């Protein structure tokens, strides 16, 4: 019965992702039917004109909608799986990638790049994402170093506390930068609230290696995350190399979060809410929750992006507004249920 439940969860998640993909590509100022989308796919995969399709529609799908939807999907997946891993590691179902200060760290890198117009030779336009990831890493290391100074055993509580302190500090730092900017203000605010528009295939190429490496690493930590949920001592008793695993999970999670922040800005609540929804349906086993979070997270962000660009079309809302508007109430309900259950 239990196995069937898991299978059903995978089926549902995959179905949800496919529907989201098709809706994301189909809906816009020019709408493209599902059938046309399939035809365009087959044409581009086979590199021949199997079906006759309107050129403009084919262009819109291949060059505008598809990269946008894919980027949204990758970002959603990254945030969700990183959130899931951090929650498991920190043994706190209410934690999220932002708790460690990763996302604030990445934002500092990005905002600084925009403010100082930094361009590192050879990186060119890639300076922004690379710097974001670097500052995300730096922040995590600083947080861990500081936590270790406070408590050599590096208890989870200490890490969370340190992460929150760093987050607030870096948040204030970003506000200061924004106040000093002037004419760049709108760009930075738009970026801070998150968007996946007008990024194109280059961003996907940039993002993909980090995504693949990060996800692979995290997917291999399912068993360890399950055991870490019982506390670090218990995990050690059961044979987990706690320090090494903790480091691996934190690094992979920050890589995913940092890269996501770089390409799309800070998008909240995905990492927090998606793993919860997955757990409700599929149980708590991380070996399933991690991959399922990838599916559901990407589907969710594709739909969120669709709403963001449709509601006040032709203008666009920042995607972070949508995820916060939908995620926060859902999260509030989850929190209430959680308290009611008494745990």
């Amino acid at each position, binding site marked *: 019965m239990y196995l069937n439940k898991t299978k059903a969860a995978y089926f549902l998640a995959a179905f949800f992702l496919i529907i989201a993909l098709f809706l994301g590509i189909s809906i816009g100022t020019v709408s493209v039917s599902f059938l046309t989308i399939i035809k365009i796919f087959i044409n581009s995969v086979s590199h021949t004109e199997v079906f006759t399709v309107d050129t403009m529609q084919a262009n819109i799908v291949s060059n505008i909608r598809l990269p946008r939807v894919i980027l949204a999907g990758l970002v959603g997946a990254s945030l969700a799986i990183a959130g899931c891993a951090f929650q498991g590691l920190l043994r706190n179902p209410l934690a999220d990638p932002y708790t460690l200060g990763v996302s604030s760290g990445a934002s500092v890198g990005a905002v600084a790049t925009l403010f100082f117009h930094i361009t590192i030779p050879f990186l060119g336009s890639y300076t922004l994402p690379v710097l974001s990831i670097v500052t995300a890493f730096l922040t995590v290391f600083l947080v861990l170093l500081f936590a270790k100074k406070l408590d050599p055993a590096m208890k989870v509580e200490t890490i969370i506390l340190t992460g929150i302190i760093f987050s607030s500090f870096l948040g204030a730092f970003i506000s200061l930068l924004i106040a000093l900017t002037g004419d760049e203000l709108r760009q930075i605010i738009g970026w801070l609230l998150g968007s996946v528009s007008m990024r194109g295939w280059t961003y996907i190429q940039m993002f993909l290696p980090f995504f693949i490496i990060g996800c692979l690493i995290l997917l291999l930590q399912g068993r360890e995350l399950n055991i870490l*949920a*019982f506390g670090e001592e218990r995990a050690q008793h059961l*044979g987990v190399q706690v320090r090494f695993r903790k480091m691996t999970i934190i690094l992979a999670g920050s890589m995913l979060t940092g890269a996501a922040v770089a390409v799309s800005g800070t998008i909240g609540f995905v990492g927090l809410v998606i793993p919860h929804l997955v757990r409700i349906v599929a149980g708590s086993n991380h070996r399933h929750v991690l991959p399922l979070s990838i599916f559901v997270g990407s589907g969710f962000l594709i739909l969120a992006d669709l709403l963001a660009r449709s509601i006040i079309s032709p203008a666009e809302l920042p995607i972070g507004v949508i995820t916060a508007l939908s995620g926060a109430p859902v999260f509030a309900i989850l929190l209430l249920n959680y308290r009611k259950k008494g745990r």
Partner: protein
Amino acid sequence: MLEAKKLSFQYGEKKVLTDITFSVQKGEMLGILGPNGSGKTTLFKLISGIVIPNAGELFIKGRKVSEYKQKEFAQIVSTLSQQTAEAFSYTVEEIVSMGRYAHQKGWMQGLSREDKAVIHSAMEQTGISHYSNTLIGELSGGEKQRVYLAQCLAQEPEILLLDEPTNHLDLSFQKELLELLKEWSKKRGLTVVCIFHDLNLASLYCDRLLLLHNSEIEADSHPRNVLQEDKIKKVYGTDVIRAQHPQVPAANLVLSLRESSADLQEEVGEANLTLSKEYIAITTDIPLKSLSSGVTGAGIGWHKYFINRHVNKDYNCDDYKMEMNDYLVKNGFLPSETVAMMTAVELEDTAYRKYQAGATSLFFVVTASVGNPADAALSEQHSSLIVPGTINIWIFINGELSEQAFLQCAMTATETKASVLRNRQVTDPATGTPATGTPTDSLLVAATQKGKFHEFGGNITDLGKAVAKGVYEVMTMALDKRQNRKTALERGMK
């Protein structure tokens, strides 16, 4: 199996453990005891590899613990804590499966057929198979502890470490868990090292105890050697009295209570006596420690009601204990607080009297007749038919007696009884020799356990002399009363 050599540990300046040296053999069950702050939890963390000693070495199977990889260590040593908090709601089977982690190899995260077999047998042994799909959050504390024990078993350890595993369990679960551990240690050679809070539980189940005191080992020996009154007083700083487990040869320590001055200093005497045709009763406000033979409350115990009940000569009841119980309840005596015996003697012949022996007073109550006399030395020649007792002697002592004194008083009383019968030339009709008593006589020695302490009750002590005198005189009085009444009765009939 496990060997600690001069282990030391300190938090900053504070020494938590100093020069701890001990070893545990395969299949042994070792209990670690000590008051709060004695370092037992730290010792436990050292053995389980959570903290690293500042000095000294710990060997597991002859190899230094520091040389083990985490997984290798977990294949040998498994740990069960007092309580495990789970952050997510896993099913019982998922949790038990995690015990296999140390044995799983490679990147593939699935469970092999062997893993599954081990998991199922672990769940069966701990009796949680029917819970396999239940979420852990839905289980009670005792059931959870069994799930984690199953997780430990799934590790297939050679050494099992437990930190007060029975702390949150009720009595039956405590017993169940410890019996399981004992069985595994004996049958499969599982080495068990367990921290105990409860000295008596440790005494019951462990092969050896390690007593920690001020970060050092105070004692490392057989439980009966470790659980000595003076050692426990030194380590725990409180008075205990060592009693014996009634069933098995294990020490059983009980707290020694300081007497409160508010307690009534009661003197048992005539004022406590109720005489009726059906029964004689002594009722006290505070329970007396009593040594007795009889129907209810026999043996050693604490009692408030002492009943000698008259029954007819032809009294015969298969379940006489139950019948007596009903009788006591009907008459308003709580059976658990009562010593009750039977007699066929008419209760108007009861004799009683108070004596003073120094600071201690004694009160005697006797019912006696010489019908059915017997010589105890030649008991083989008598039938084994039980008829209600004919000489019942009660001795109440307003003082404190050692258990030895209780026994000596009983001996003195019995010898005196034989002497009374011999002086009255009562003979055993079956053998023709002087009788020593009747086959169903009963005896009660009860003491208030307050006032002067008597370690001995033999017949050269003041107490013993008073017992002998009292029994002799009061028993004679009872026999005379009966004889006089019978003679008067016979005269009247003529």
